[in-house]
């Protein structure tokens, strides 16, 4: 007699043939892995770019093989930083946590056989892939990659090659890539939201959803509402560059003593459109990591998440407020100072739900029975890094202080700690946690631990000192410090950060080797190696085509029922009927 409720449903046969199975698959699990691998490729490129940047910052005249000309030029440095930022933000942080893990595990965690619209799901991956191709093509077109930063402010990005190398073809490739990426993200968001609303298993109420599902859901809502705005801005910029419009370029612009033929547009308009998207984007990057952190902290403390409801509401609050603070990127832009004040207060308020989440993570650990497996190490690291990175935001949120710190390395330190490290730790935690389920094999714990120690210490060594460079007035996006003596005095710190960066980048080999080696040679994974409670752990490792083999679960309790008094084991899976729980 089965202790799990079920509803038998007609299951369509799994696809056969290499192309339908692995390439043009509509199976959310395959698509999730495709996105993850795309992110893995992108992060490799992104890290390489940043290593080259850190190298240039401390050895600007060094001879670098393979670079045309032998020595890196300032414009090449700027192209590196533009592409580094763009690739990391879009093709790593917006893909792996959401489209990668979300695609794979959202349907399973809510007890569904697949996403609501599997064909659209497949399309969204392939459009993302084409977008990546265009983005990488920017390196190889005449003039090279653009140099206007991932923020692409106009008129620097709107006038074509006259403003700098890479602003011709390179910027065009960039814009096409981003426009495609917007379409892909909108399609993805559509799927996530519809699936969460309509395909939950019986008994899976909103308040019984794992926090990972909450995170993916809120993130998808952000994506749905934000990417349309970037799409609009991107299209208008393309028109300014190639169709003679002047949305973003004012009259009387003079470049190289030649007046440009434009009239009356507003550079600030681009900034508003971009940041209206750009701020929710950074929450898109971090929210899934928060969901994973909650999930992993609970599982490896053998304790329910502390304040589950507050956690869910806090994520909603962060998402909602995230749409109202974009002006804090524009305090010194020439925007109205009154709105500056409004944006400031709203931004300080976002610290509140973030703090609530941090306290609740500590509360989850408190009184627990903590096991320091690799997913847990990265989840704990996430909490520490999120605190460090989030707190510097409090300085930047105050315009009077931002007037000093804007465009210094302080800002770079802030967003790297939250996005470039904490969010990445979320991805690592998710990888170590779900690898057994996705690939049917366990990863190597020793390699994982080395990976963690090096990365945790290494990233702090890179980014904590960076705050000090900013406080001293070190300016970002400078390819060299030669302009002012005080900048040159900061070089020893840059030296330290670069060495730390090289070591940390190299240490990622622990991860890559572990990942690819374990795919083939890792010990076979059981269904539930972590004794976890959510629905993905009742499936096979990896799950069968429709996830549950035709026998779909019903849900009887919340997602984090660990160490329940009276139960024989220290966890109760969500799908076990109350009367069937072992005592």
């Amino acid at each position, binding site marked *: 007699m089965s202790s799990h409720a079920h509803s038998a449903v007609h299951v369509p046969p799994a696809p056969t043939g290499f192309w339908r199975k692995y390439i043009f698959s509509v199976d959310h699990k395959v698509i999730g892995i495709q996105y993850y691998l795309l992110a893995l490729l992108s992060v490799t490129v992104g890290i390489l770019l940043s290593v080259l940047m850190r190298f240039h910052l401390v050895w600007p005249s060094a001879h670098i093989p393979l670079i045309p000309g032998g020595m890196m030029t300032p414009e090449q440095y700027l192209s590196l930083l533009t592409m580094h930022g763009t690739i990391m933000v879009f093709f790593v942080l917006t893909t792996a946590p959401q489209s990668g893990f979300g695609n794979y595990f959202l349907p399973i965690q809510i007890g569904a056989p697949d996403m609501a619209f599997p064909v659209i799901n497949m399309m969204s991956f392939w459009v993302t892939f084409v977008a990546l191709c265009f983005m990488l093509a920017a390196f190889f077109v005449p003039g090279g990659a653009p140099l206007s930063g991932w923020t692409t402010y106009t008129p620097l990005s709107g006038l074509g090659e006259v403003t700098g190398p890479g602003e011709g073809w390179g910027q065009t490739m960039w814009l096409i890539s981003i426009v495609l990426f917007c379409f892909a993200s909108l399609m993805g968001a559509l799927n996530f939201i519809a699936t969460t609303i309509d395909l939950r298993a019986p008994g899976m109420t909103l308040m019984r959803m794992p926090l990972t599902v909450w995170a993916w859901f809120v993130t998808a809502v952000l994506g749905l509402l934000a990417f349309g705005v970037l799409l609009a801005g991107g299209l208008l910029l393309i028109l300014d560059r190639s169709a003679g419009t002047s949305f973003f370029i004012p009259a009387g612009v003079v470049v190289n003593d030649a007046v440009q033929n434009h009239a009356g547009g507003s550079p600030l308009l681009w900034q508003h459109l971009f940041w209206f998207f750009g701020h929710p984007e950074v929450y898109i990057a971090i929210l899934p990591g928060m969901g994973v952190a909650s999930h992993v902290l609970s599982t490896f403390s053998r304790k329910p998440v502390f304040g589950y409801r507050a956690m869910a509401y806090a994520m909603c609050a962060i998402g909602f407020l995230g749409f109202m603070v974009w002006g804090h990127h524009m305090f010194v832009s020439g925007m109205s100072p009154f709105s500056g*004040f409004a944006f400031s207060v709203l931004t300080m308020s976002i610290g509140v739900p973030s703090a609530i989440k941090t306290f609740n993570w500590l509360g989850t650990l408190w009184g627990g029975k903590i096991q320091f497996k690799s997913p847990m190490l990265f989840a704990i690291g996430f909490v520490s890094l999120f605190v460090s990175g989030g707190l510097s935001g409090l300085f930047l949120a105050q315009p009077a202080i931002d007037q000093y710190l804007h465009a210094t390395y302080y800002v770079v330190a802030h967003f790297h700690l939250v996005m470039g490290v904490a969010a990445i730790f979320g991805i690592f935690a998710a990888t170590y946690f779900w690898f057994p389920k996705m690939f049917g094999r366990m990863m190597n714990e020793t390699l994982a631990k080395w990976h963690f120690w090096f990365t945790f210490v290494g990233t702090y060594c890179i980014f904590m000192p960076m705050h000090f460079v900013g406080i001293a007035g070190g300016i970002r996006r400078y390819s060299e410090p030669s302009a002012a003596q005080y900048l040159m005095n900061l070089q020893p710190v840059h030296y330290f950060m670069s060495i730390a960066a090289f070591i940390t980048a190299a240490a990622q080999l622990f991860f890559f080797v572990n990942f690819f080696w374990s795919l083939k040679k890792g010990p076979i994974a059981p269904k539930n190696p972590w004794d976890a409670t959510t629905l993905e752990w009742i499936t096979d490792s990896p799950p069968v085509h429709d996830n549950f083999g035709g026998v779909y679960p019903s849900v009887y309790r919340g997602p984090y029922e660990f160490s329940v008094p009276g139960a024989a084991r220290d966890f109760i899976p969500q799908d076990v009927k109350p009367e069937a729980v072992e005592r």
Partner: protein
Amino acid sequence: MNRTAKGSAATPAILSLLLVLLVVITAYVFASGAFKAPPPITEIGKQVDHQYDLTLIVTSVVFILSQLGLAWVIFRYRDRGQKAEYNHRNTKFEAIWTTATIVLFVGLGLMARHAWAVTHLQPAGSDALQIEVTANQFVFNFRYAGPDGKFGRLDPKQVSASSGNPVGLDSADPNGKDDIVVPTLTIPVNREIELLIRSQDVIHNFYVRELRLQQDAVPGMVIPIHFTATQVGRYDILCTQLCGLGHYKMHSFLDVVSEQDYQAFLKQQAAQ
């Protein structure tokens, strides 16, 4: 899986230690003052620093408590064979720390408004000395109105750096004949200065650390900022908004001089 096995204490011990080290080292470096902003040369700059210090105190407390709290909790509750507690929430604590956070964070934000209001919501005094700052790839030019006290009209079509008219003075406007255009900014001490910031091509930024002030130069806009420098000296002006390949070397100097020296400077420029 043996659920009751104790884990080794090495991992949590090392992790806790690292977190403690993080706090200690960070606190030490901040406290040592090894990396500081240069002293401000305006009154409002002192207020900005005061607000910064306040924020630093609040964030330091939160930082120290959180990181040390994390360090303690992971070590204290490492698996030693105990059973975990089963609880979901503690309404009292949640209410307390939520309220405290709201008060602290929003309070901090509200406290910062004065410094911002003085710089941006109050206009410059009517007798402030107006100087126009023109940014372009990759130089700053500063224009004074000259003895007639009037700025001449500008014409983008007449911009020509090579023929000595970098800001594009309109030759048809007599008011511009005595305008002084120089590549560094010289101002008298203890007088209110209003800078009119503009750009010819892309977005740049005018930044002087000691003023605790920076302002984007946006083509199509003229953006005023004002301040009163209280300290004679030479200070770096940097462009902080990415403006192209020469961004890193777009630099000038702010010279704050005595009133006498300022008059001498004007006279010398007028003679040219």
